[in-house]
């Protein structure tokens, strides 16, 4: 494991450029944000489906609450334009 890291580091250092190019960094940022949003939506979605099952009128409200964490991804998308 450690040899692999050492080898990787030496390759990167010899290459001269940054280990993670800016666009790749931004991509990782967006991906992680999406993952976080997914985790948040898991619980909210489950609760929303439960509430809708009991009362049909909750569908609209449940839907809105479920996608609220999606704003995380939209905000993270800004990084794409910054780099």
């Amino acid at each position, binding site marked *: 494991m450690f040899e692999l890291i050492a080898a990787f580091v030496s390759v990167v250092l010899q290459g001269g450029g940054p280990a993670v190019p800016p666009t790749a960094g931004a991509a990782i940022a967006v991906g992680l944000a999406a993952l976080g949003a997914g985790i948040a939506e898991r*619980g909210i979605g*489950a609760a929303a489906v439960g*509430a809708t099952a*009991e009362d049909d009128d909750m569908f609209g409200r449940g839907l809105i609450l479920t996608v609220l964490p999606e704003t995380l991804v939209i905000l993270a998308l800004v990084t794409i334009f910054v780099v």
Partner: protein
Amino acid sequence: MSTASSSSSSNYEYVTARVRSRKAKLFDEDDYRQLTRMGTGEIARFMEESEYEEEMNDLGARYSGVDLIEFALNRNRAKHFEDLLRWAEGPLYDYVARYLRRFDAWNVKTVIRGLSSEADREDIEADLVRTGEFSGSLTDRLLEAGSIEEVVEVLDHTAFGPALEDALDDYEESGQLVPIENAVDRAYYESLLENMPAETDRATSLYIEFLRAEIDFRNVRNALRLARSGASVDVGEYFIGGGRLFSAEEIDGLAGNTNELIARLRDSVYGERLAGPLDDLENAESLIGFERALEEVLLAYSNRLSQLYPLSVCPVFSYVLAKEREVRNVRAIARGREAGLDAEEIENELVVL
């Protein structure tokens, strides 16, 4: 359904959302005030327009009056609790099933009592509450049993098996049902705290504490009842282990002396919450007020827990308690009206929060 909960995680979000919605649909104080002023026919009509519509329509052709109300209540409760078991996954299922085993205990007792009073199969079946962990086929086999020995045999592999077998000898010697019913109750309460799953966060440990409190209260109630009735029964026989208030030896000494028991309760962890009811008990003659106060304390505490720990077993448990309260309240109203009690008297019997 089996006790074995898989290693999957609990789906608290889903169950809590549904349970909260159902809890909001329970009768509130206003409904009770109306109900206490109605006759049995009116109560039945009121229930037809509420949560109980389906059950009332199903059973309306077969029963009438208070029986109709009572069977509809039982069936509705069974339906809701069955739903809980259907939804819950992982450790949550285990927590809920543990508590709902009380209906298994109830069913076993009903069958045994039915057999000893030589009731018809249909009559016994009507009184069963089909929820809890027993499967439909196990319950059917219970119903088909022709004697108490057969019932014990059928239950061999369940949690009640070992305790019942021990009690069977007692029963055969004395011919009384008490030892058997006692064994069923104790098996239930002892299985309540057995093998708690390893997932112990704050909310779960509070839940366990809650079950302990219930065992303690049950012991207190038994001791008080025995002390009041003046019967020379060995209280230790009725003692349920697992609580944190007494040991079997202690309760023996305390049961004979109500004042000492009250003093003991005052010094205990429950002292603060029970201060009011304890004062009443010291002055008043009847136990009914105190027993009702115990219920109220438990109910209020469970409501508080469900708000403090929204994603835990607490909201589910608080719903189970509230639903049971509702069923008991409506039943008390219907029976009270039938017996001709007036509204104030009935209202005194209700536990409303």
